[in-house]
């Protein structure tokens, strides 16, 4: 906890009522006019970033929550608004990242954003209402509709290109093809069920999601996982990050028809996955992180196996980075392609390598930070160019950083239990007694960026009332539209792969 509350929290504390059942960040209940005021404050305070916007319930009893984060320091905070009139003042005009989230809230909860920037549906695909793509005017423009069914086996999404010859004038995304109703599924689920569901929101981020969920549950029940569990969780999270970054680097190069990198990165990624299976019993480490700790301990010989993997990866990724750096025909494709301005990355609060390749230093492991990273020194690589090349290089840097983190995590692995029971009671004085609902939130750095999980538990502390997992892709997908502008059509796959946003995590 910082000594001085940030300006954001001071603002919220002044205008709202603090909800003590919410942990670890404060949540404030705002009145309607204060919500409007908050919107204006967002417009004038560029460093108050919107990191989540979701609703619960439906008319007539509904509520909207907005997670905010003050870059100057301090904890993030949540602002809430009761919506008895099934509407809420829109903040999309001040924070463009909120626009699609507001459209989603209307689709899922029937709450109407007032004066929205965009009033079209987002997740609902109603055949009776043809979707209105944004109009584009100009001479000799033509459309290229791509997807949702693609020539390769990839996730579904529709991309509407408007081009002048080969130059992209506008790209508009249409997502929601893999909406599965995960949030509804989570309502009323037991903690065990919910942990399994959240861990499967986006398969490539299984650890990050499970970790965010576990941390949110632990925050709500005021449980502190044992130190050994924190270390093992971090170990898994870093393995997942390495595996995905390797896969991404290979796939990006493959999109430039440089199959060599794809093959080599594929091999190394497979090494990571097999080590994960040998050590934790699952290639993607699903269901390994559970509320209260981790499901499986790591033995001496398994730790040695991870160390051997790390040594191999250190050597091999250096070699691959050299190949990437020296392959002129590849550099020719990636350098300067799909440049994303740092201004936009900041405005949308884009997390992960996308933000960090466009000079945004945000990393949830550092700020707000969580165990065991708060006890460790590690560099967060940052680049300024914001092009495909920067996003590839950043992945190489992050692999290096993760490898050294794993080495230190193994070296400093504390002894002790790896799982502790959730304390359903034990609230400090002034806080609610054990008979009330509790709320928890967690922000965890997955390989794509910051994964946010917010939840409300029933009074028994074992049932999920409402859980909202927010994928980092929400704030990255819109930026892809900006990054591709002015590029040529055949460079889109490169840009897209270098973003590698999640469809499953976004559509829920």
């Amino acid at each position, binding site marked *: 906890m910082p000594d001085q509350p940030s300006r954001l929290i001071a603002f919220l504390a002044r205008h709202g009522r603090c909800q003590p059942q919410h942990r670890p960040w404060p949540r404030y209940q705002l009145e309607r006019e204060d919500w409007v005021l908050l919107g204006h404050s967002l417009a004038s305070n560029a460093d108050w970033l919107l990191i989540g916007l979701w609703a619960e319930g439906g008319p007539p009893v509904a509520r909207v929550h907005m997670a905010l984060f003050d870059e100057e320091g301090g904890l993030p905070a949540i602002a809430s608004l009761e919506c008895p009139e099934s509407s809420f003042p829109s903040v999309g005009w001040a924070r463009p990242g909120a626009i699609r989230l507001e459209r989603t809230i209307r689709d899922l909860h029937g709450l109407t954003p007032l004066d929205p920037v965009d009033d079209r549906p987002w997740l609902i695909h109603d055949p009776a209402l043809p979707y209105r793509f944004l109009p584009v005017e100009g001479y000799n423009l*033509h*459309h*290229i*509709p*791509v997807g949702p069914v*693609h*020539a*390769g086996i990839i996730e579904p999404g529709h991309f509407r290109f408007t081009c002048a010859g*080969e130059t992209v004038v506008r790209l508009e995304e249409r997502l929601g093809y893999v909406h599965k109703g995960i949030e509804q599924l989570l309502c009323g689920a037991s903690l065990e069920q919910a942990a399994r569901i959240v861990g499967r929101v986006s398969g490539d981020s299984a650890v990050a999601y499970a970790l965010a969920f576990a941390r949110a549950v632990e925050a709500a029940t005021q449980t502190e996982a044992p130190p050994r569990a924190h270390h093992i969780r971090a170990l898994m999270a870093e393995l997942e990050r390495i595996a995905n970054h390797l896969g991404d680097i290979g796939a990006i*190069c493959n*999109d*430039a*028809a*440089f*199959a*060599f990198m*794809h*093959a*080599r990165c594929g*091999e190394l990624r497979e090494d990571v996955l097999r080590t994960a299976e040998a050590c934790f019993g699952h290639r993607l480490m699903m269901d390994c992180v559970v509320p209260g700790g981790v499901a499986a301990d790591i033995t001496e010989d398994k730790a040695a196996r991870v160390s051997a993997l790390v040594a191999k990866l250190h050597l091999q990724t250096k070699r691959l980075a050299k190949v990437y750096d020296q*392959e002129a*025909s*590849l550099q*020719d*494709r990636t350098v300067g392609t799909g440049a994303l301005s740092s201004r936009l990355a900041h405005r949308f609060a884009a997390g992960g390598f996308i933000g960090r390749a466009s000079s945004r230093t945000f990393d949830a492991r550092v700020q707000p930070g969580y165990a065991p990273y708060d006890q460790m020194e590690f560099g967060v690589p940052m680049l300024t160019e914001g092009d495909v090349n920067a996003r590839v290089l950043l992945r190489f840097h992050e692999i290096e950083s993760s490898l050294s983190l794993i080495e230190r995590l193994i070296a400093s692995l504390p002894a002790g239990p790896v799982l502790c029971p959730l304390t359903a009671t034990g609230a400090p004085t002034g806080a609610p007694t054990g008979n009330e609902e509790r709320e928890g939130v967690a922000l965890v750095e997955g390989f794509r960026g910051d994964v946010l999980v917010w939840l409300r538990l029933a009074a028994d502390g074992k049932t999920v009332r409402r859980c909202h997992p927010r994928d980092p892709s929400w704030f990255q997908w819109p930026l892809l539209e900006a990054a591709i502008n002015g590029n*040529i*059509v*055949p*460079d*889109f*796959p490169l840009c897209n792969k270098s973003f590698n946003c999640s469809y499953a995590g976004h559509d829920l």
Partner: protein
Amino acid sequence: MELITEGLIQIAQTALVLALAPGLTGLVRWVKARLLRRRGTPILQVYSDFARLLRKKVVVAHNASWLFRLVPYLVFNAVWTAASLVPTFSTQLLFAPAADLIALIALLSSARFGLALGALDIGTSFGGLGASREMMIASLAEPAMLMIVFTVSLFAGTTHLPAVAEYMSQHQAFLQVSVLLAAIAMVIVSLAETARIPVDNPATHLELTMVHEAMVLEYSGRHLALIEAAGSLKLVLYLSLFCCLFVPWGIAHQAATPLDILAGLGIWVIKLAVGAVLLAVLETCLAKMRLFRLADLLGGGFLFGLLSVILMFVFGSL
């Protein structure tokens, strides 16, 4: 007697180019896979693929006209004819009088024109995209090819392929700077014409980056088989043409014994295999070029060709 020999050789060549074409494509794929430390699909897989495509039902878009159905046959026949004209293992071909470089280029251009029309016919955006890119590449590759033809005709005094092959093999052509430059230009043109990396990626699934594949996305069944076969034939054709112009040793000439012809056949197959391996190595070492950088590559090819023409023209013997 001579007529019968020539007829037999012509039939053999016509059948062989078709029979070997899928194998060559399979070989390139296999070598590429091995270079990536993969096991690689068997070379014969491509033959099974063709058999599968031929068995399958053809699905045609509702708004396709007769042109769409005609194009595969047109393309296949034009390329097959062209491939059977190039002297591969013997110059004693029945159709040798027609085996002219200009005629060859005309046949291939007709095939390309047909394919582009077929791609435009169904009116999908990818078809249009592919056709426009193919035409852009063709418009850059053809001048370079023209320069190569000029060099060769200045050197050998004819564009008649059997005569060129004979002349080249007897005059130590590879020692000529201008011929070497023309050969480099030919490699670049061939890569573009056969839709290989760095110009096009034959293995991609990314619709937006495709050139040749984008044009044939809507084809299926036997139509697709014909177009793919034409693609494989084109690879055989360009490798054979390169060999015929720049490494013509081993090709049996007039008054060759049956043994010479058999030797020529063996040497040709070896040349094709070596060419396939070199192509696979080249493709593994390079990323695909950005679309508009192709002008630089093919422009370079044109310059090589131009330089060789000038050298040939000015210095005569260089």
